[in-house]
């Protein structure tokens, strides 16, 4: 077993199927909010350290639930989740999470929101030091000038940058992201996707990212691997490795024939699942996404 303090090796050197030796692994996970309906059925998944994985699924398929289980915010009904070989028992600064909205506390200034995380990581640091470090993290997401603002004074995109800055300040080796750009307009979304990739590739060792989305293009643009979830009950229906070289550029990527092929391949899983649901007469209508 790799000890927690050991620096992680080059992610490419870690074979993806070495369960339990570092990274995040999910073994035969079951979950249900009530006894009538199973939310997640027999999910097994291995994410080596430093991998960027996208969980793709339509609304109501349980992808957010899976992310909450990974964070330790929910307890599995069956199976287990391991991080670096140790079972996940509750939320921890090891696994930072960025929600779609309301990630920042509205009663604190942006800087103080980030400072909450800095304080946790370096107890005993002086107030001035904490403030300075918090502002450094805000600088990394291009929000240095907004440090004094309150969340309600910022746009949705800026709030999400703030939430990312706070998770970075927490120093979490695992970054869990629950449709973080889902509420943004397309231009802002692409810019934040690029920012996220820049930050992820610049850090060493790279963080392990689990990114939940229902947008096929977003999943392909960001991920090393796309895991497609089907619904009722939520389960893995497909896994596709994304081989495009990094750094990736949106315009260049979208122009590639191989990108379109990949998109239709992933789309096929989606449609098959949707047809199966229609046949069963159990289409989940989500109010949130207005589908």
């Amino acid at each position: 077993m790799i000890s927690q303090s050991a620096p992680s090796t080059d992610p490419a050197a870690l074979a993806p199927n070495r369960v339990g030796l570092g990274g995040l692994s999910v073994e035969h996970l079951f979950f249900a909010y009530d006894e009538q309906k199973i939310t997640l059925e027999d999910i097994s998944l291995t994410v080596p350290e430093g991998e960027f994985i996208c969980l793709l699924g339509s609304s109501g398929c349980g992808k957010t639930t899976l992310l909450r289980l990974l964070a330790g915010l929910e307890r599995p009904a069956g199976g287990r989740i391991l991080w670096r070989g140790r079972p996940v028992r509750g939320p921890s600064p090891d696994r930072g999470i960025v929600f779609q909205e309301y990630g920042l506390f509205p009663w604190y200034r942006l800087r103080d929101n980030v400072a909450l995380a800095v304080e946790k990581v370096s107890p005993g640091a002086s107030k001035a030091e904490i403030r300075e470090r918090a502002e450094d993290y805000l600088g990394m997401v291009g929000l240095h000038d907004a440090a004094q603002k309150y969340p309600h004074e910022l746009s949705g995109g800026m709030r999400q940058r703030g939430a990312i800055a706070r998770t970075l300040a927490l120093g979490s080796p695992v970054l869990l992201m629950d449709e973080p750009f889902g509420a943004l307009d397309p231009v802002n979304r692409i810019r934040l996707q690029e920012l996220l990739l820049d930050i992820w590739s610049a850090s060493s060792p790279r963080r392990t990212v689990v990114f939940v989305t229902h947008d096929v293009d977003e999943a392909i643009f960001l991920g090393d691997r796309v895991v497609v979830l089907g619904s009722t009950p939520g389960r893995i229906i497909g896994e596709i490795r994304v081989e495009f070289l990094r750094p990736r550029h949106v315009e260049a990527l979208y122009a590639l024939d191989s990108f379109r092929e990949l998109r239709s391949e992933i789309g096929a899983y989606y449609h098959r699942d949707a047809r199966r649901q229609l046949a069963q007469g159990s289409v989940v209508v989500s109010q949130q996404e207005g589908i």
Partner: protein
Amino acid sequence: MPDILDRCADAAQTGAGTLPPFVGNDPERPAEVTASLYRSGKRRRSRLVVSLYGFSLFIAGFAAWAAVAWVLPAKHRYLFPSPWLTLRMLWESIPELLVGTGSSFLILAPAYCGAVILGAVWGLLVGSSERLRMIFIPFARVVAPVPPTVYIPYAIALLPTFRSSAIFIVLLAAFWPVFMNAAAGSLAVPEQYRDNAGILGFTRLEYLCRVAFPSALPHIFNGMHVGLGMAFIMLTVAELFGSTSGLGRFVQYYADYADFPRMLAGILYTGLITFLSMSGLGILERKVVFWPH
């Protein structure tokens, strides 16, 4: 999916990647700001019109009072004095009323502050712990609705001075609404805030101070408004029983001597003080809870 092409076109036009940092250059911002300015301007105008109507209601009430006092036969006028006489009595009684206000606030201030602090702290603790909730909420459901007025005779018999028994009664009356609302507020902390606290690794105390307390503040202020109203009621009622000075005492004293103009002046003055205290609390609330909730 034709939107991919649109997106590429968008990105090409705006030159994604070479744009300056986000601050002050956010495409969603300008429209939002203009819209909200427009809306608030409109709302402000209609609010002015409504408050003018409200003001004219005061004038109408005053005129009706004057008319009734003028029409009444002279032998009833001592029971129903004219507004002019009442206002003159109010002016003449101001020194006495100020002394009474001082003595009333010596009861009200410590009792109300004590109730707010105890109610908020205990409410937050109970609301955020399932075990404390199960122990304390059934008890509170039974005890809270008991009208605090029924405790007055016993409190006066039990406690050494009138002041201490009045403080106890007022504190009890203001405590329950603050406590109930604080407990409801800390129970209603949005899931995201709780999740964030867990991931940030907050201790229980940190959670209470940094998340539960600010998040429950709007609820606590609701309780404080109700509690302040209750406190004024209990204060004046208690003063009718055994006090030697104070606002309630002033009214009772002149009623006993059938000096109804002065008694009415005392009622008007007490109403004014209550109104000012309530408005002060409202201003404080808007200052403290500055974020949208």
